[in-house]
């Protein structure tokens, strides 16, 4: 599981480093570096394997039934990216220590950087598409946090929001694309998907899949027209820009193109979409970069342009182009990270990034200038530097790819123009910053940075030169395995040499170099032209309009839907249910009445139904007289009990009866604190509207119930009937289902009960109502609150009621009864004591603070469930046996009985908690009123 550990290590390191930073900055840097080095050490065996061309795949089953596993994969491509992420990450950690001013929290920066490091490693080492997506989103989040690092700055917050919106939106598209791809390929495992290329390309859903995945890749890699977020992401501290927004995170998009290259590439759609987007981005980025006065902005657009170049290479789709693409990923990461760091040094030393003011720094920092020049030369594609090699391969591929097309000659031309602009902006960066006269009005006097701040840049610059001069000895091994992983085939013959003889590519390089210098020399009229057009085509403005519009529409919708009126919300809910119900039924040809034989109606049932309908209507009509309405509702509840008795549901009847008593007592208590009557305040129209809704809803419910009742059923109930005795050891199937077959449901339900009771307890904590001294008519409350006869009888009843409860509980597994009913009976018996004898009397003798009991009941239920694990069975498996007890006869002792006991305890304590607390409030209010 070394790969899993490697991905998790940075995540674990993040909080540690944040803690270390409280002690000292240097310690935090060491901690962060240690986390990265440790990760590297864990990865080393797999990396060593990777260099032999082997692929390390590690899986950890997660939900095998759904085909989900944690799956990690390290092949050549993963190896290359892991090396970039960890290598440049280490350099950035060192650099940031010197870059960040002491007043800014270094711990937060390192923690975020490590979060990003872990997420990005997750992306490149994932062996499963879904898992890759999760890490993909995590990189977007880490990028958001890092861009907004200076959260007090408005531009940082805005840039972070924009980056998150664009890359997050792309992530959604990618999710859809990956789901399609996984469904087409039949698996989300990369090792399977990568071999299904032919199947995927021939599938009718290939184009939507491709477009969705490309949307994800293009937004992440800032391809046109989604490029605009990247320049605004430059509000982040420069180490972040160097790391995320040039070397690694923005490469996630091209990583995805490379990863899925064997599956998706090779069709005209792929070529046109990917090459097209890449070329437009390449050219537009290069042109805009030349005109940026902010040198970090120049580098940002240059990054966009280079990402376009890589994208275009993958779009061309030949094996050699893919090799060149991988090569340029390496080269660009090296020289651009170096450049950003050099730019950060200049910014750090001058306090501004405006190239109209930052001039002539050669005198102040010649050493940094040399470093920047080397990196710039690589960016421009000057021979002997690494950028030249991959760029020349790109030129060669452009010529080859254009050769077969009708307007194919355009391809090399566009590419050469872009190369020409790249040379021009590279020259501008160096000439403007280090030469071109004297500095203008700088906030600080620049000088060379601390020794160790330059080390990361030096490392990268040396790499530029080594790769540029000795490519075959330095970069070839890693390039070969990475290219092999991209192509899923041995890479084509390629010659990483400086000199390829006289070729079109060489000619294009010369044109680009010479033209670029010339273009820079003629920059003045171009700059004037640009100034006139500046700001007219800003994608940011469009984005912000879109954002503001969406927000306005959302607010309007919310204002319309959420008026803050419960009545309105309720009415909308009812209307929605009626509409959906009607929509589901209308237009179907099914008859309302089914074929099931009906039961005969007897006189008693008819009478009961008449009482129910009458009482319900009465309660509705008289609802303003609250006590009357409540009594009528109680009558309705009792008829429902009778219905359960008649319709073969004795358990339900018992439960409903007990609940009915408790509910009515509760509502009576509540009524004490509420006005006895409701005012008449609904308008006539409102009443008719509600009556109409009620009529529609009621008829709908009748029709639905009728349709259900008259249809024959094929229930799974018979399974429970057959298995209740052999499987659950009980004859009362309802109870066996509750405590055994579906015990997990019951566990959830008693938890809900407990939560509701605790919620009520919390609400009543602060509840101190003022009771009026008498009722609404002015009559004082009766002084004889607890009549002696009632009190005496209640006390006599208690042991009897408890005995009944024990009886009902014990027989519950075989005859109607069980924990729920027994619990309710106990609760009622205890509540009667409170009612008859007064809270203070009962309080002194009975438990009223029942929270510990509540917890004990839940824990007992949990323990019973967990106990079955000890026997290697699933949660809440029960065991049963029958024990003969003298006098009682044979008693079924199932482990489910303990669970039932837990249910009983929870029901008693929850009910008491609710009612006794309300009752105590009541008593307190009454005493106050009597005083």
């Amino acid at each position, binding site marked *: 599981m070394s790969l899993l550990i490697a991905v998790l290590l940075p995540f674990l390191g993040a909080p540690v480093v944040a803690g270390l930073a409280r002690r000292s900055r240097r310690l935090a840097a060491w901690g962060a570096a240690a986390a990265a080095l440790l990760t590297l050490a864990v990865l080393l065996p797999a990396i060593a394997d990777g260099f032999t061309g082997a692929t390390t795949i590690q899986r950890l089953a997660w939900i095998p039934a759904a085909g989900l596993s944690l799956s990690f994969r390290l092949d050549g491509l993963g190896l290359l990216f892991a090396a970039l992420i960890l290598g440049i990450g280490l350099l950035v950690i060192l650099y940031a220590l010197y870059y960040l001013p002491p007043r800014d929290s270094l711990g937060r920066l390192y923690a975020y950087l490590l979060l990003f490091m872990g997420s990005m490693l997750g992306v490149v080492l994932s062996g499963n598409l879904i898992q890759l997506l999760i890490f993909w989103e995590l990189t977007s989040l880490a990028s958001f946090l890092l861009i907004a690092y200076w959260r007090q700055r408005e531009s940082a917050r805005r840039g972070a929001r924009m980056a998150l919106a664009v890359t997050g939106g792309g992530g959604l598209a990618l999710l859809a694309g990956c789901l399609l791809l996984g469904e087409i390929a039949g698996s989300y495992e990369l090792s399977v998907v990568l071999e299904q290329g032919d199947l995927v390309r021939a599938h009718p859903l290939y184009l939507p899949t491709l477009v969705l995945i490309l949307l994800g890749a293009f937004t992440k890699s800032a391809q046109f027209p989604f490029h605009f977020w990247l320049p605004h992401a430059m509000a982040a501290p420069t180490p972040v820009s160097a790391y995320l927004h040039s070397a690694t995170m923005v490469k996630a998009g091209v990583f995805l193109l490379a990863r899925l290259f064997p599956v998706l590439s090779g069709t005209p759609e792929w070529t046109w979409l990917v090459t097209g987007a890449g070329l437009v981005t390449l050219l537009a980025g290069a042109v805009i970069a030349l005109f940026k006065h902010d040198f970090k902005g120049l580098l940002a657009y240059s990054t966009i342009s280079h990402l376009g170049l890589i994208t275009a290479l993958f779009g061309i789709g030949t094996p050699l182009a893919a090799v060149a693409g991988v090569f340029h990923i390496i080269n660009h990461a090296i020289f651009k990270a170096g450049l950003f760091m050099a730019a950060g040094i200049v910014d750090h030393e001058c306090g501004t990034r405006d190239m109209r003011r930052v001039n002539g720094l050669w005198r102040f920092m010649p050493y940094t200038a040399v470093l920047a020049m080397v990196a710039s030369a690589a960016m421009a594609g000057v021979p002997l530097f690494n950028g030249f090699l991959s760029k020349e391969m790109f030129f060669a591929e452009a010529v080859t790819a254009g050769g077969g097309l009708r307007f194919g000659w355009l391809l090399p031309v566009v590419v050469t123009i872009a190369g020409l602009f790249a040379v021009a902006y590279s020259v501008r960066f160096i000439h403007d910053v280090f030469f071109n006269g004297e500095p203008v009005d700088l906030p600080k006097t620049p000088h060379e940075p601390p020794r160790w701040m330059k080390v990361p840049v030096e490392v990268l610059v040396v790499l530029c030169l080594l790769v540029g001069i000795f490519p075959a000895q330095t970069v070839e091994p890693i390039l070969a395995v990475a290219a092999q992983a991209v192509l899923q085939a041995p890479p084509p013959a390629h010659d990483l040499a400086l000199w390829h003889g006289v070729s079109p590519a060489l000619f294009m390089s010369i044109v680009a170099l010479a033209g670029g210098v010339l273009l820079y020399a003629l920059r003045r009229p171009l700059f004037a032209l640009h100034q006139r057009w500046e700001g007219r085509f800003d994608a940011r403005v469009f984005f912000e309009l879109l954002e503001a519009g969406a927000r306005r529409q959302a607010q309007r919708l919310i204002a319309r839907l959420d008026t803050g009126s419960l*009545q309105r919300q309720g009415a909308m809910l009812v209307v929605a249910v009626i509409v959906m119900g009607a929509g589901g039924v209308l237009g179907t040809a099914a008859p309302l009445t089914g074929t099931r034989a009906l*039961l005969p*109606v007897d006189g008693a*049932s008819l009478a009961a*139904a008449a009482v*129910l*309908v009458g009482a319900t209507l009465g309660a509705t009509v008289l*609802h303003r007289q*609250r006590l009357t*309405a409540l009594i009528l*509702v109680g009558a*309705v*509840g009792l008829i*429902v009990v009778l*219905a359960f008795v008649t319709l*073969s*549901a004795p358990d*339900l009847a018992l439960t409903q009866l007990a*609940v009915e008593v408790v509910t009515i007592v*509760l*509502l009576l208590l509540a009524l004490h*604190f*509420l006005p006895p009557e*409701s*005012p008449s305040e609904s308008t006539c129209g409102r009443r008719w509207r509600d009556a109409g*809704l*009620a*009529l529609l*809803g*009621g008829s*709908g*419910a*009748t*029709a639905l*119930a*009728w349709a*259900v*009742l008259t249809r024959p*059923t094929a229930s799974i109930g018979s399974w*429970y*009937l057959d298995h*209740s*005795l052999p499987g659950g050891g*009980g*004859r*009362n*199937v*309802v109870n066996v*289902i*509750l405590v055994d077959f579906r015990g997990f449901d019951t566990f959830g339900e008693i938890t*809900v*009960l407990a939560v*509701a009771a605790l*919620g*009520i307890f919390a*609400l009543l904590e602060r509840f*101190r109502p003022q009771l009026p001294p008498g009722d609404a008519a002015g009559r004082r409350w009766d002084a004889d609150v607890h009549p002696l006869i009632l009190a005496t009888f209640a006390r006599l009843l208690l042991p009897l009621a408890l005995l009944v409860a024990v009886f009902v509980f014990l027989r519950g597994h075989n*005859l*109607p009864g069980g924990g*729920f009913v027994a619990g309710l009976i106990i609760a009622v018996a205890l509540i009667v004591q409170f009612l008859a004898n007064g809270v203070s009397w009962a309080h002194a003798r009975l438990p009223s603070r029942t929270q510990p009991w509540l917890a004990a009941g839940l824990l007992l239920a949990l323990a019973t469930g967990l106990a079955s694990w000890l026997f290697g069975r699933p949660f809440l498996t029960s065991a049963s046996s029958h024990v003969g007890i003298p006098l009682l006869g044979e008693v079924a002792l199932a482990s489910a009985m303990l669970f039932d006991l837990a249910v009983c305890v929870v029901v008693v304590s929850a009910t008491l908690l609710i009612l006794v607390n309300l009752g105590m409030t009541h008593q307190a209010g009454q005493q106050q009123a009597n005083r």
Partner: protein
Amino acid sequence: MEALVALAIGTLTGCGIYLMLRTRTFPVALGLTLLSYATNLFLFTTGRLVMGRPPLVGGGSVTADPLPQALVLTAIVISFAMTAFVIVLALVARVELDSDHVDGAGSP
């Protein structure tokens, strides 16, 4: 018998909806109680109506469907918990907002 049960469910639903849309908290609580009766009865009817044959092993070959009964049993207890929570919320709102209007507005 089926018609009676269907009618009862319909009446309970309709009256429950009407009361649920009233302006004061107490009728709303009553309406929710009626609606939970209706819902429990309806859930119960998915097992169809059977008279005199409770789901006990050994009680005959054809008995009532035990599964809806088990579901309704817990539903009854949960509806009680919900009613209790709503009514206590109403009480607290009455004291804190000095009104028992569901929107907390108007005269007490």
